[in-house]
């Protein structure tokens, strides 16, 4: 009986790691729910120009919370379609916009840099979503975008879409090594 309990306890502890994957936050609280804002670098934006607001400071801790939750990454995938990121970036292969599933990152591959690209916009057509998307949804998008190049573990990255199968599921993609991160590592003494 004691052995059974010990086995049970250790299994539960081991599996606690899995719990973060299933964490679902519907109401992220006032801080995360406030709209993401940064000074737009691109005149292209959805809807009307947003009124200037306090810039939201990207926090890596916020990212990790979303990157470890399969639900949040799934939300990122839903928003990627809903906000028409597919229109320019397709399902990661790029078209009008650059590919997101490869190792090339024009404006940086770090999560904070992807966050900034979305909120500020970028030259040559990446719209600025400043004032249009709450912070937590930008983080969900960032997490999803990172999954497109295989950065997320297999059990958290989304599986195949209920869409026409034009690309491999994010969980099956090989992990890309972004060149800017490699350069950073080389630059370190």
């Amino acid at each position: 009986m004691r052995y059974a309990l010990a086995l049970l306890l250790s299994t539960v502890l081991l599996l606690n790691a899995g719990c973060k994957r299933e964490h679902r936050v519907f109401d992220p609280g006032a801080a995360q729910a406030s709209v993401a804002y940064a000074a737009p670098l691109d005149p292209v934006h959805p809807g009307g120009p947003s009124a200037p607001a306090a810039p939201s400071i990207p926090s890596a801790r916020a990212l990790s919370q979303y990157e470890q939750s399969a639900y949040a990454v799934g939300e990122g995938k839903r928003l990627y379609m809903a906000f028409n990121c597919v229109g320019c970036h397709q399902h990661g292969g790029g078209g009008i916009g650059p590919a997101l599933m490869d190792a090339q990152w024009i404006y940086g591959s770090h999560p904070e840099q992807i966050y900034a690209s979305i909120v500020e916009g970028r030259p040559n057509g990446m719209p600025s979503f400043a004032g249009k998307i709450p912070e937590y949804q930008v983080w969900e998008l960032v997490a999803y975008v990172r999954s497109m190049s295989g950065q997320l573990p297999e059990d958290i990255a989304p599986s195949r879409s209920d869409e026409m199968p034009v690309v491999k599921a994010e969980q099956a993609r090989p992990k890309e090594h972004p060149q800017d991160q490699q350069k950073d590592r080389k630059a370190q003494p």
Partner: protein
Amino acid sequence: MMFLAAVPGFSGDQTSLNPVGPGASHIEHTFALIFWITAVVYIIVMAVLVISIWRRHHSLDTMPDPQPTSAESDQRAQRMVAVAIGVTTVLLFTMMISSFAASRAIATMNYEQALTIHVFGHEWWWEVQYPSDQAWKSVVTANEIHVPVGVTIRIHGTSRDVIHSFWAPNVQGKRDLLPGYDTDLMLKVDQPGRYRGQCAEYCGEQHAHMAFYIVAQSQDDFNHWLQGQQKSAPPPATPQTLHGQQVFLTHACVMCHTIRGTTAGSRVGPDLTHLASRTTIAAGMLPNNTANLAGWILNAQNIKPGCRMPPNGLSGSDLQDLVAYLETLQ
């Protein structure tokens, strides 16, 4: 059959026992037939059981020896069981034929001239379209389906994500909305009124709050309503509503909602062009008034956790102006 559900405080606007159209009526007749037959059979069988046990019951502490079976009594019993099985079969066939008759009666609506309404199931709201062969006459709305009284309606439906089920019990049985399939449901409403329906196939976090209303009106009222819905939103007339429109266009709203007559054209969430003409918001959950609308916009997750609408941190005056503008969208 309403006696089955008769209790004070029951409004009767989401029940199969209060039919307002031929669909639900035919079903209710078969229901009543099956109810009476099965109730009588049940009472008889239980009575026979109880009486048999009562008559043959011996209160003994020890178990008596098993008794030999008697050929005569078993013969009589065989005849009675044969009769019982025969009666059961006849009753089952009666109920079966009644069921087939109801199906056929309902199916006659398939051949009538029908007004087609397209319904798309979303997680967790209903997109409703009144198609027209002239594009500018098409109507897109959400969660509220107006129909003319006495006219056959074809609900042509599919789902945009998971399986939902379109069910307005006062009017007709349910029909699933399946991704990859188109399903048809014929219905007709004979009495004007508002009838509530609810999604009847588990569809995720907010399945419990996915309701809609069928609003049955006279043909004239319906035509008037449809013409109103065909129009784009009028330009705002007051400074407050003008600012409200600005708030709408410069905040997250444009990412998901359409208001025809403005540049907002996203199809992710319900079409808001005639939001103020609807009596409920949040898929039939809340009455459509200022307070509910403001609370919903501010933090829909408090009200319907898991739904697709994010919180919006608007300032008090922005929110007031936005709501004022939305209330002009008749």
